[in-house]
């Protein structure tokens, strides 16, 4: 069912942005670390590389900021941290997501919306 697949792909792509931002709430993280975190959740990240265009986009939109830090292995790592704007965007997403999720669940269950 190519139509359903395309819709799910688009949905996942949109949601991935907020999942990445949510992972940055607790602490700044570097790209590879984010990929590993997302890989723990089945079905969230189908191709690991696509996270980098996403991070670049979040950075240009000033939702995340970057900072290079020296690692214990002696090479620099680019860390991403949530900005104030990113924090607000995530908070607004959390509210809308809660409403949307319960609405869709209701309808899929066949109950009254």
């Amino acid at each position: 069912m190519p139509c359903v697949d395309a819709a799910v792909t688009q949905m996942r792509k949109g949601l991935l942005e907020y999942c990445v931002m949510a992972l940055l709430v607790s602490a700044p993280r570097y790209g590879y670390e984010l990929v590993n975190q997302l890989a723990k959740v089945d079905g969230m990240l189908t191709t690991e590389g696509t996270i980098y265009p996403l991070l670049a986009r979040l950075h240009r939109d000033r939702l995340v900021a970057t900072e290079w830090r020296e690692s214990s292995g002696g090479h620099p790592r680019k860390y991403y941290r949530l900005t104030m704007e990113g924090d607000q965007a995530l908070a607004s997403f959390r509210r809308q997501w809660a409403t949307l999720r319960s609405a869709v669940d209701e309808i899929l269950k066949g109950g009254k919306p």
Partner: protein
Amino acid sequence: MSGPHATQIIEGYVARLEAELAGLPADRRRELVQDVRDHIGESRAALEQETDADLHNIVDRLGEPAELAREAREREEVKRSNGQHWGWIEVAGIVLTILAWPAGAILVWLSRVWSRQEKLIGTLIGAVAFVIGFPLFGPLVGPTLGRLVQTLGGPTPLLIPTLGFFNVIGAIYLAFRLSRRETALSRVTV
């Protein structure tokens, strides 16, 4: 210990990625390639004993270069269409299309907001007045000088208001297209 064909596998992947990224701005290309190289470096450092199979797995998990490039282009386009608001270039372009056509036309073509077709129509209407006005008044002052002469109480050749009229039509057209664009955009971004 590196896999026996480590350089070949990694550089081959990066080269294919770079080829797929052609068309994106150079700084975006550089950034993404660097991010991917760092990712490969981190993945390799996490291995205890590196084999060619490990390296193939690393680049396979990254995804097809074509898919990464598609993703990069999509994320780039979203950004660009969100940032497409009009500013002083567009306002000055419209005003100068009426007052000093060649300067107005240059600004209109410098703007990134109008499409090529709109620029062509908008400036060609003004060009009609310019071409007719040129032999009479010289390149820069065509219709403007005519109006000035009128204000000062000088002779008013019938031709002069007509020339200015063409420029005003061109400016109205450009402003109209711009306002249409704004409404369409605000609908998309809200």
